[in-house]
């Protein structure tokens, strides 16, 4: 074993601790260029990542930054700082540790750039910002190690691509830099290793002992779950009982809206006034920090939360994790379970609470998967080109660069190892000139090549570039504030705000507020005595059930219903009676009226991407045949379409020839493509979310990104950003082959015309992520509604 410096080994011995085997191995391999450690939550993963740093820094003085730690969450950086301080202060090591995130004060940031600490804890976005400064070489001078925490989570998104590009940049600045990735248990360690390693270096994968298997079960309640709905209000008394029985409970939800509603109901039933908090990404920072601090101090008995607490924050004494609603992904469930008993040798304890009977089946499927140790993975394509475009801007903001040198540097990043020079040059052309066939901006290029070096035409542009760094796509968010000079309560999506009328009430931060109006891009609300919010709160993130889980669900429907509670077996029986059960050899299609609209429900069990594609294709055909579709929503099992006219026989809509016909051409016009384009254009720097001088109220100067999409589609459909948009949207469409295979295998498509919603269709009405269809139905609605309004106003 590599010797730990005396102060550190003394500190560990004084606690009666012993290093885990994987922590010792990390010390031994400290010199490797790249190492990936796979360990369960609570396995001392973070300490394993930092031990080599502590050992090196304890050994002798170091000038400047030594180790950079990057995590996907700001809260995680703050948490690690707290945890690292204990050994450093108690062992009296001469080490300075600081964090730097979007929340760090400007004075502290400035000081950090001039005089960096030994260990800097940060996020991918803050790192990208650091490398955009001209003094980046000074900031990172002396850097030896990079620790990337929760790399499995980063890899699933463009944030990971941005981080890997930044690491290539750092490696160019600091030759000999060593990387360590810390990951939860995943299906494909080798792929993550290749993602992390500087190409073509190898990356060794270390596996920690996975520890005892988790104890996970479904919560038994006296009352049966409802047919539909996501609130799980029926389970409130049982959940409260569990909270009372444990020290600290984390109550996870799949969406922010569900977390809000559950929290509200929990408080209404909380007769003993147990201290219970709420934590999710839409709440104002002060509110989140309050909960985090109370939690760390042991002042809370439970926290109702969402994915914002998914990652490895150390919450101390959590001894129970409750998952409300079916877990959509087994790997994520396993991670959440890991929150309980944050100790390596004790089994984690978790309860699943299905919100409705459909979710009972999903929970059962997830339990089986956990028991069998099956994890699901989400395949990712190569590095995103829109992220590369932003990286070029970031590099130019820092210093002039030579194209070939940057190309070689980018190819050292794992996700970009297969990048061609042609693709690189396309991106550079876009960043410099806009990349249009019509060369309009030769005079006003963003980047100019002078003396073989690419640089900003106007150096002042660097500020605008820095203001728009990042790849996280919050759809446009509006702050919510109490009218007058009230505190910020959180944020809601602009699209949600647009549907509000003064007087409407909604939930945010666990309280009910009344919508007053929109003012300076802020949603103004007031307190209200109402106990029942009329409108559900903002959408939040939608998770897709992995295909593996979907398949398990279909098998469960047809296998024995032994493992299922009676109420759910009854529900399945009711579906069989009212309509029928989906089967592998048939495609079940239901048609029914509901709430003034007509609906069509298709049970494809092909995964959300494929079901979404099916929704796009079918609504297009319905539009062509005059069936006036209004929109649709897709889940992993089914697609629900609504419109103005009933579909009595859906079979003609499914003709394969018709579905395939013009797939690409018409696809170009739909809302999914526009949504995809918007994200890509923002990341690539075509749309600037932030400009010097803040966003003003309802300004007529800003226009929708849809207009840019439509313009490009008409005048330059093969523009780089359009190609990136198509490629990204098509990745979802690849799954269309599953629909095709399914359609070819079925003997026939029978449309079941029902008088009302079927038991299986009901839950679909509460899904978020609805896709509108623009077409004849919209015009008809407008005509009807304007006439009604004119009459109501006595004007017609």
């Amino acid at each position, binding site marked *: 074993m590599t010797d730990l410096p005396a102060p550190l080994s003394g500190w560990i011995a004084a606690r009666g601790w012993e290093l885990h085997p994987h922590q010792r191995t990390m010390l031994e391999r400290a010199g490797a260029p790249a190492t990936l450690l796979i360990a369960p939550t609570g396995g001392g993963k973070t300490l394993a990542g930092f031990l080599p740093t502590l050992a090196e820094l304890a050994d002798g003085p170091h000038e400047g930054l030594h180790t950079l730690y990057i995590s996907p969450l700001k809260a995680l950086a703050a948490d690690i700082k707290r945890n690292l301080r204990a050994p450093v202060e108690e062992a009296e090591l001469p080490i300075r540790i600081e964090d730097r995130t979007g929340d760090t004060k400007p004075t502290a940031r400035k000081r950090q750039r001039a005089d960096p600490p030994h260990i800097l804890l940060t996020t991918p976005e803050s790192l990208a910002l650091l490398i955009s400064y001209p003094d980046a070489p000074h900031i990172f001078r002396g850097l030896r190690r990079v620790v990337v925490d929760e790399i499995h989570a980063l890899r699933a998104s463009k944030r990971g691509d941005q981080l890997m590009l930044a690491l290539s940049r750092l490696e160019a600045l600091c030759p000999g830099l060593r990387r360590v990735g810390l990951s939860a248990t995943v299906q494909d360690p080798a792929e993550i290793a290749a993602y992390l390693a500087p190409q073509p270096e190898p990356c060794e994968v270390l596996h920690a002992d996975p520890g005892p298997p988790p104890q996970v079960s479904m919560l038994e309640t006296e009352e049966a779950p409802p047919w539909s709905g996501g609130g799980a209000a029926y389970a409130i008394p049982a959940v409260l009982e569990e909270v009372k029985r444990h020290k600290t409970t984390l109550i996870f939800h799949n969406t922010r809206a569900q977390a809000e509603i559950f929290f509200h109901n929990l408080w209404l039933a909380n007769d003993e006034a147990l201290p219970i908090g709420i934590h999710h990404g839409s709440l104002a920072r002060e509110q989140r920090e309050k909960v985090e601090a109370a939690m760390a101090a042991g002042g809370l008995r439970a926290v109702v939360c969402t994915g914002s607490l998914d990652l490895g924050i150390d919450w101390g004494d959590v001894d129970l994790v409750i998952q409300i609603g079916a877990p959509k992904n087994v790997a994520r469930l396993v991670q959440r379970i890991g929150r309980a008993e944050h100790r390596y040798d004790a089994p984690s304890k978790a309860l699943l609470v299905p919100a409705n009977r459909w979710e009972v089946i999903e929970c059962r499927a997830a339990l089986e998967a956990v028991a069998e140790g099956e994890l699901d993975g989400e395949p990712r394509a190569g590095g995103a080109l829109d992220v590369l475009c932003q990286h070029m801007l970031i590099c130019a903001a820092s210093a002039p660069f030579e194209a070939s040198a940057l190309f070689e540097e980018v190819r050292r990043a794992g996700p970009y190892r297969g990048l061609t020079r042609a693709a690189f040059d396309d991106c550079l052309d876009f960043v410099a*000139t*806009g990349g*249009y066939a*019509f060369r*309009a*901006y030769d*005079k*006003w*290029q*963003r980047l100019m090549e002078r003396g073989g070096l690419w640089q900003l*035409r*106007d150096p*002042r*542009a660097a500020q*605008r570039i820095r203001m728009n760094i990042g790849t996280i796509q919050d759809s446009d968010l509006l702050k919510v504030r109490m009218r007058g000079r009230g505190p910020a309560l959180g944020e809601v999506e602009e*699209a949600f705000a*647009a*549907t509000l*009328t003064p007087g409407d009430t909604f939930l945010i931060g666990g309280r009910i507020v009344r919508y007053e*109006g*929109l003012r300076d891009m802020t949603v103004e609300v007031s307190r209200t005595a109402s106990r029942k919010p009329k409108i559900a709160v903002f959408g939040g993130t939608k998770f897709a059930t992995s295909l593996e889980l979907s398949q398990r669900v279909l098998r469960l429907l047809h296998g024995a219903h032994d493992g299922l509670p009676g109420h759910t077996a009854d529900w399945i029986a009711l579906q069989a009676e009212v309509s029928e059960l989906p089967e592998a050899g048939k495609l079940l299609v239901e048609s029914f009226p509901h709430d*003034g*609209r007509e609906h069509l429900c298709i049970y494809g069990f092909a995964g959300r991407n494929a079901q979404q594609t099916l929704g796009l294709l079918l609504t297009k055909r319905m539009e062509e045949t005059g069936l006036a579709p*209004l*929109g649709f929503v897709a889940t992993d099992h089914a697609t629900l379409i609504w419109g103005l006219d009933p579909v009595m026989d859906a079979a003609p809509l499914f003709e394969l020839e018709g579905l395939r016909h013009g797939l690409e051409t018409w696809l170009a016009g739909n809302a999914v493509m526009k949504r995809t384009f918007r994200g890509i254009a923002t990341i690539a*720097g*075509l*749309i*600037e979310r932030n*400009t010097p001088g803040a966003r003003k*109220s*309802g*300004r*007529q*100067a*800003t*226009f*929708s990104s849809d*207009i*840019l999409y439509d*313009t*490009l589609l*008409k*005048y*330059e459909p093969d*523009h780089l950003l359009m190609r990136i948009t198509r490629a990204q949207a098509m990745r979802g469409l690849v799954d269309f082959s599953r629909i095709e295979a399914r359609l070819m295998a079925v003997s026939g498509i029978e449309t079941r015309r029902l008088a009302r919603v079927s038991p299986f269709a009901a839950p679909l009405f509460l899904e978020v992520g609805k896709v*509108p269809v623009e077409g004849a139905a*919209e*015009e008809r*609605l*407008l*005509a*009807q*509604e*304007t*006439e009604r*309004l*004119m009459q109501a*106003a006595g*004007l017609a």
Partner: protein
Amino acid sequence: MQGYSFTLAGAELVARGSGALFWPAESLLCVSDLHLGKSERIARRGGSALPPYETRETLSRLDAELEATGARTVICLGDSFDDSAAAEALSAEDKLWVGRLQAGRRWVWIEGNHDPGPVDLGGAHLAALPLSPLTFSHIADPARFGEVSGHYHPKATLKSRGRAVTRACFLIDSDRLIMPAFGTYTGGLRSHHETLSSLMRPEALAVLTGPEPSPMPMPR
């Protein structure tokens, strides 16, 4: 394309779904806030390089409206250019196109806040145009009656059966008409905004643009 017919100060007008206004008695077509050359101006000022196609797209829609109405007089109601330099920087092709549209027609450029000076293109340049019983001016003046103006790019939202549809719109009352923006790269100001609410009478109508423009009480 359909239109909504209404009367302002005795003049019979049609609010067209394209966002243009037609006055059949005068064979007059009015469009507002074309913002030609907007992408050039943004790039010049260090912003991003937006697709440089908005000028030809706006001109082709204007071309189609002239074709459809056969208007003999055209009024561009101000902010026709994103700024004076953008007007000068129009491509030779686009300038020729404007010339073609002007041929055989009376053409009036009303000055806007973006394009106060005269531009190097044919047509008359005026601060405002009185054409009894109406007055055409870029920005609304609460004191005027029978006024047609632009500037605010009004838009309105209609909610029905869980669907919110937002579109550019005309705002109409017994005193005035505020036109939607005709330019391709333009956004809008919500009809709820206090500036618009205070300009328009309580019984004002909003006419959403689109294939079948129809009136509704102005959302406020």
